[in-house]
């Protein structure tokens, strides 16, 4: 494929897919180790009612009100989960389960009741996003990467997810030690004087920001898959947290790139005449990578694993 075709049509969706996958996989490592992986699932579902309400209030499909609506909805969800857990005295997983299904269902109902036919806002969009449509029409080839006027036409989603990814990396880099210590041994961390509650909440907020930014571009399916699949697969490749994070980034990138390419060309190779959803394929690939790691990963049998 030539640059003239690849750069405008495929470069930006690919980059957005890769950045979204990594931004979710990074905090996902800690969420999975803290047995809070469902938080990612919960956030990505509750984002829907937040976006719908933001649309109803402002009447426009615009990124910022929707992201604020989504962020508010995730805060409501985190509060609800805590309230249900404490007042109902039920386990956290069940509290998350009822919260996100109820809020997602509420979002679907709201969406059906509103006239959104004129705008690009529907359940399908919420699930799969619109990765394929995030093209860069101003580009004419690789040389456009150096052309300021063409660069100005890059999709907003790319800049937003890129900034989010940088924020996520800064958070994890800066708070690496407290995150590690408080995830492994919260009691010890607390005795050291670390504010483990604040660290845990910050992690959830960072995950929520990543989920909302990624949801905007790629839909909730990828968000759910990326919080869990790359970190879980990475855990079976190594016994060191730092290396696990590295592997999870590799798996997230692989899923995004392979998924995007296979969704676009796979059906054609198989004789079908139209492409399938890139988001769906990316999530599927991440699941397949997890299955591969579970079958062949060197650290899949942990309690009797060889010393080397």
């Amino acid at each position, binding site marked *: 494929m030539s640059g003239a075709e690849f750069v405008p049509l495929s470069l930006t969706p690919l980059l957005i897919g890769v950045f979204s996958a990594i931004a979710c996989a990074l905090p996902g490592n800690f969420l999975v180790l803290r047995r809070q992986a469902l938080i990612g699932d919960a956030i990505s579902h509750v984002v829907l009612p937040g976006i719908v309400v933001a649309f109803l209030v402002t009447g426009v499909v615009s990124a910022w009100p929707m992201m604020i609506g989504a962020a508010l909805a995730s805060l409501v969800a985190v509060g609800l989960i805590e309230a249900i857990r404490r007042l109902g005295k039920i386990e956290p997983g069940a509290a998350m389960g009822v919260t996100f299904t109820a809020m997602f269902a509420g979002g679907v109902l709201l969406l059906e009741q509103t006239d959104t036919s004129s705008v690009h806002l529907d359940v399908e969009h919420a699930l799969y996003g619109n990765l394929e449509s995030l093209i860069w029409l101003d580009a004419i080839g690789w040389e456009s990467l150096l052309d300021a006027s063409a660069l100005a036409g890059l999709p907003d989603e790319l800049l937003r997810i890129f900034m989010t990814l940088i924020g996520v990396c800064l958070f994890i880099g800066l*708070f690496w030690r407290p995150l590690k210590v408080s995830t*492994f041994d919260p009691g010890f961390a607390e005795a*050291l*004087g670390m504010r483990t509650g604040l660290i845990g909440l910050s992690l959830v907020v960072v995950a929520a920001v990543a989920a909302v930014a990624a949801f905007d571009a790629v839909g909730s399916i990828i968000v759910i898959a990326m919080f869990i699949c790359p970190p879980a697969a990475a855990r079976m490749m190594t016994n060191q947290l730092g290396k696990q994070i590295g592997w999870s980034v590799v798996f997230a990138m692989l899923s995004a790139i392979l998924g995007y390419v296979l969704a676009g060309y796979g059906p054609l190779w198989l004789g079908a005449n139209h492409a399938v959803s890139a988001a769906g394929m990316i999530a599927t690939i991440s699941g397949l990578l997890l299955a591969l790691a579970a079958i062949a990963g060197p650290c899949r049998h942990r309690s009797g*694993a060889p010393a080397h």
Partner: protein
Amino acid sequence: MTVALATEQGIAAVDLIAESPLAIRGMTVSYGEKPAVFSVDMTVAEGAMTAIIGPNGAGKSTLLKAALGVIKPLAGQATVFGASLKTQRARIAYVPQRASVDWDFPTRVLDVVMMGLYRELGLLRRVRAHHIDKATDCLDRVGMADFADRQIGQLSGGQQQRVFLARALAQGADLYLLDEPFAGVDAATEKAIISVLKSLIDEGKTVVAVHHDLATVTEYFDHVFLINTRKVAEGPVSEAFTSGNLIAAYGGRLATAQIDQLDLAAG
């Protein structure tokens, strides 16, 4: 005369609390409706090895955690070396129950010990050779130097406990608080741990451990603190470790035959 004497005693009592490595006052903790620890006072003797003993569910671990701020008490406070806990954290090392963490966590033995250097390293200070040497020395002290590069999931229960002790040693503290350090460990580990703890006492440090095995209290510890939600007794083993106090703490859960076998103080 009487007034002067009373004042002197009052001052002496205040000094005891002020100098104590750990003084707990009115500590009350509740997880549900019933308090787990109720209005407990404790004054830990400096340079001594103190056992916290009591039946299951008596609030031993809870008392320790509340004193450290790991769990929030309903009421009460702890002072450490006469000052607030906040200002004295660097002088405390805490060894949680081995079973309280997930040993499947992706990390190596040396990394766990390095966690003890957190106060030195902070968020971003670079790990230098002398930090690694220090951590390795601590592992050596508990007989685990050969295991530095092992994944922690591959360790036996006794080895895990030694790694936790090495992490506490790396903290270079003056007060060591251990939650059931001998629970589920092999005899060799128990011996290794007690010899490390005795060496800490020889260096002038203070050790407090939640302890289960009444048979070894006299051999291992200098002081004893008996608790069953409320404080039952505290003092040197030779004074407080009596059959009367044990019955008060354990009630019917301790058979008279068991008590007879213990090396108890008279009283």
